[in-house]
């Protein structure tokens, strides 16, 4: 038994890739739902109806002030006794969505508040209708400044999907720990999953940076 057995890694690779597939599926669904929820939450947060704003603020504070692992356990073990039973997969997606949406709400809000009053005034004085004004003037500017922190949350969503192994979702980390429990090859397993996580996360960061550059191009210094 050598220190690093490449044959063993090759042997485990199909399992690990299946785990990675699960990680990506759960993260993708959670990212999709949380972005939607984030937009809705942000709209409620900034609406004229004060109570809804306070409720969203309280929600964001609560999610950010409590450990993610306990949130997962609350969703998976706690909700059934309140009458809502979800499968492991959907509880995972729900917990991840709830967590990420709180951060998305904050970054969208920051993005919107970065659009200065003058821009609002200028575009309404040009006679744009409210919808056009929001869609073509305010939103592009807001998105541009919200993008970095939104991307950060997106990457965080993928990273946090590793926590779902605690409720038994068969994703990348679960596969690795399960194999270690059976065959005690911790070095190989952790090396493999570290490389996989790094590849995925660095890849997404790189894509995000390109997107950022592209959105910034019209405003770049000439």
């Amino acid at each position, binding site marked *: 038994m050598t220190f690093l057995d490449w044959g063993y890694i090759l042997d485990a690779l199909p399992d690990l890739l299946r785990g990675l597939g699960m990680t990506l599926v759960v993260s993708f669904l959670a990212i999709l739902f949380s972005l939607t929820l984030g937009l809705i939450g942000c709209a409620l947060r900034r609406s004229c109806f004060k109570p809804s704003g306070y409720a969203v603020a309280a929600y964001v504070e609560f999610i950010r002030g409590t450990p993610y692992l306990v949130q997962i356990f609350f969703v998976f073990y706690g909700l059934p006794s309140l009458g809502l039973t979800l499968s492991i997969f959907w509880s995972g997606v729900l917990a991840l969505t709830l967590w990420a949406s709180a951060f998305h709400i904050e970054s969208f809000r920051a993005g919107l508040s970065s659009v200065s009053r003058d821009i609002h005034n200028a575009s309404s004085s040009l006679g744009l209708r409210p919808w056009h004004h929001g869609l073509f003037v305010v939103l592009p500017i807001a998105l541009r400044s919200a993008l970095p922190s939104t991307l950060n949350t997106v990457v965080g969503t993928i990273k*946090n999907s590793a*926590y779902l192994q605690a409720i038994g979702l068969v994703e990348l980390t679960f596969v690795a720990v399960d194999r270690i429990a059976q065959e005690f090859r911790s070095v190989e397993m952790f090396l493999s999953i570290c490389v996989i996580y790094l590849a995925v996360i660095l890849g997404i960061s790189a894509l995000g940076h390109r997107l950022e550059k592209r959105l910034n191009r019209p405003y770049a210094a000439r």
Partner: protein
Amino acid sequence: MDLLYEYRIFLLAGLLETLKMSLVVALGGTLCAIVLTFGVTSKPTLLLRISFGLMELLRDLPLMVTVLLVYFMLPAAGVSLNPFWSCCAAISVWGGANGAQILRAGLASVGNGQRETAAAFGFGPLKALLLITLPQAMPVIVPPYVGLLTALVQATSLGSVVGAQELLRSGQVLIEQTTIMRGGSPAYLVYGSILVVYFTLCTLISVIGGRIERHFLRPYARGAEAKVGAKVHAIEATISTSA
């Protein structure tokens, strides 16, 4: 609610362990952060590259993986630690990587002129750092650092994954023991109250942090808050989502 009262001693023991772990992790994380900061602010050499690589690696891996990795790999390296200390080590190193980023940004926010002036007045590097640069960097460092501390406290809940007897693990044990006895799972009650406990802890830290922040802002009160604020929010967002 009866259940929580009945087993309060057991749960309080878990809470105490969580507090102990939080303290260890906060101190250990700060120590790692200081060491790493010296690495990432050093002259471009091998040391700089290694520290940067380590920092990026730790920030890009899920914390769950780091905790499990330390727990499973230390025995392979010939070190045997109990779950409590191995979890503390993992979270401290993670906290160190994030803390180093905060400290580096804070130090970089102080203009180079300050350092040159200090040197011109005959301050040594260490003295200039402690007496000139650091006090000015504090308004930039403190807010995200408080965020990091709350993240560290939250991270101690990961101890339950490797079997350290902290608050979350106590809650799990309590649920396992009482579900059959009571003819129904008290999970929502137990996990709900654990959420509330953590929320209270983190809010408390934020409130204390706010006071420290105001203390450091006072000497520069005129308009300083506006200048510092933008940087601070960017760093804070980075830290809190990289958990």
